């Protein structure tokens, strides 16, 4: 192959390599700036990823929905979870659907399996929150301890737009989890 074709192809590849992360960033930034914010009550646990580092897995309280609609038993696959805000200001399920509905309600795409007795169970996709390696484990411990002693609520602040959901931060009673962990670490020293 001609050298100039090689170089052109190489630069095309470079463009793709730059485009992929740039597109990821654009989609997330767009959702953060123009999406709607929801608070999802959650409980963090601390595992690790070899490339992206330590993170906490968020076990959301909102993980199922009772429906009268037939045909959900033994269904597994993507499910459109339409959202509303409850009286306390936290996210709640308005309805669920196997297909995209013609409505202006915000929705997230979750993975559903093991549905029984007309209860649709699902896993929300934004369940990873990456943290500093020295804080992830303490995040799990401190939140657990805080919730045993008091009525503190842990929630993930998620921006939603056109099915894209961006987990912005995790809070414990309006304190960002990073600050909460720092205070906890100072307390045990």
């Amino acid at each position, binding site marked *: 192959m001609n050298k100039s074709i090689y170089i052109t192809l190489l630069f095309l590849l470079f463009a793709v390599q730059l485009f992929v992360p740039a597109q990821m*960033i654009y989609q997330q930034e767009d959702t953060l700036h123009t999406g709607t914010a929801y608070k999802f009550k959650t409980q963090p646990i601390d595992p690790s990823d070899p490339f*992206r580092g330590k993170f906490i897995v968020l076990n959301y309280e909102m993980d199922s929905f009772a429906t009268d609609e037939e045909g959900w038993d033994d269904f597994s696959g993507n499910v459109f979870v339409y959202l509303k805000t409850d009286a306390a200001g936290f996210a709640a399920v308005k309805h669920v659907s196997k297909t995209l509905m013609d409505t202006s309600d915000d929705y997230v795409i979750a993975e559903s399996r093991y549905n029984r007795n007309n209860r649709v169970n699902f896993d929300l996709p*934004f369940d990873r929150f*990456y*943290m500093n390696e020295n804080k992830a484990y303490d995040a799990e411990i401190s939140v657990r301890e805080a919730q045993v002693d008091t009525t503190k609520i842990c929630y993930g602040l998620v921006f939603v737009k056109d099915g894209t959901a961006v987990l912005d931060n995790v809070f414990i009673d309006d304190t960002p989890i990073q600050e909460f962990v720092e205070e906890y670490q100072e307390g045990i020293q």
Partner: protein
Amino acid sequence: MNSKLERQLAELLEADIINSETAQKITAFYHTKDESKPNRLFTIFGVLGALLSGLGIILIIAHNWDDMPRNIKTSFAFLPLLIGQIACGFSLIKKKSTTWIESSATFLILAVGATISLVSQIYNIPGDLSDFLLVWTVITAPLIYLMRSNLAVIIHLVLATWYACYSGYSFSSIGHTPWLYLVLFAWVIPYYMMLQRQKAETNITGIINWLLPLSLVIVLGTFTNGDTLLLLMYIGLFGLFYNLGQLSIFKNQKLRRNGFTIIGSLGTIFLLTILTFEWFWKDAIKETYHGSDVLITIILFIAGIATLAYLHLKKQVQGFNLFQYAFMIIGLLYLTRGIGSVYGIVATNLLVAALGIFAVRIGINKSSYGILNYGLLIITALIICRFFDTNLDFIFRGILFIAVGAGFFFANYLLIKKQRKAALNSTSNTQTHE
């Protein structure tokens, strides 16, 4: 030139086996050969440097600098990627040495991984490790051809195998059959064939000779759910590997470079030994099948048979070799498993014993202690398996063990005798000529 060779040359000169002119020619030959070595060393160190610094960047990113504002972290995310791209572009445009090409390609592949990692981390982008590995492998795959980088092939295979395992063996959630792995695997084949044509004897080709079959062996299990069909699938794969390893491009190389033959042979023997147990044949009768499992098994068997047919057509088969046909025999036994489990068990036991004896024969013919003892080990493994699961009495089992033990001594003795005789013959021939 190393001092060992210098000493040997002095010894040969002293014993009047070579004259000083020949000694000088030998010395000159090794001097020229040594001149290419520094380049190779530079390449190895260059690639090691790129690998280590690339991995270092990934680790530093994994720390998660949460004090830094999001936009600064995002700008930093592109830094390693841009450095890698500039290095690759520079290497290609300025036609730099292999050291540059290999190091910059290695660094860029790792930099792409680092950038995606950092962006995923900054925005808490969902998706498990398999999604991440897939994107990473796909957007770095063209570097193999554009940079003509051998290291890129190795990293590509490692990443593709990792992706398939993580996705298919359901470590994190429900396992998904990693069909895209087949595309990623096929992507390197044209490059590998080019290496076989142009650089068959190089170390890198030797490494890929091992990596390709190893990757398939690791990943094949993700394509099925059935137990007995999984074993049959692997027997088909090992049969295909063994026959591929008999193609002249591999056969003419040293055995240790022939990953296809070694993995094919070891895999076949290992699985056949499992198949000598009763449970396999009993389960095989009961098992229900999925369409894709059966299809993959059939494809593997057809590929194995086609390779064997090709070897016969191109007259690359030297005499009868039972190892080349073992997978077909098991395939037939599996198809006729309805006759009864006893039939399958007895036939497989006989097949393993025959393969052991066959390996001993090959070992004696080729005067190879390795192959000879491999054959004896096959027979021993078979007897050990029967030691645990048959109702044979102790005396009979004891005699069997003594017989195999004696077989080890006898077969090795035969080979030593054969080699001594050959050595004596060659000495007497030399004396006659003088």
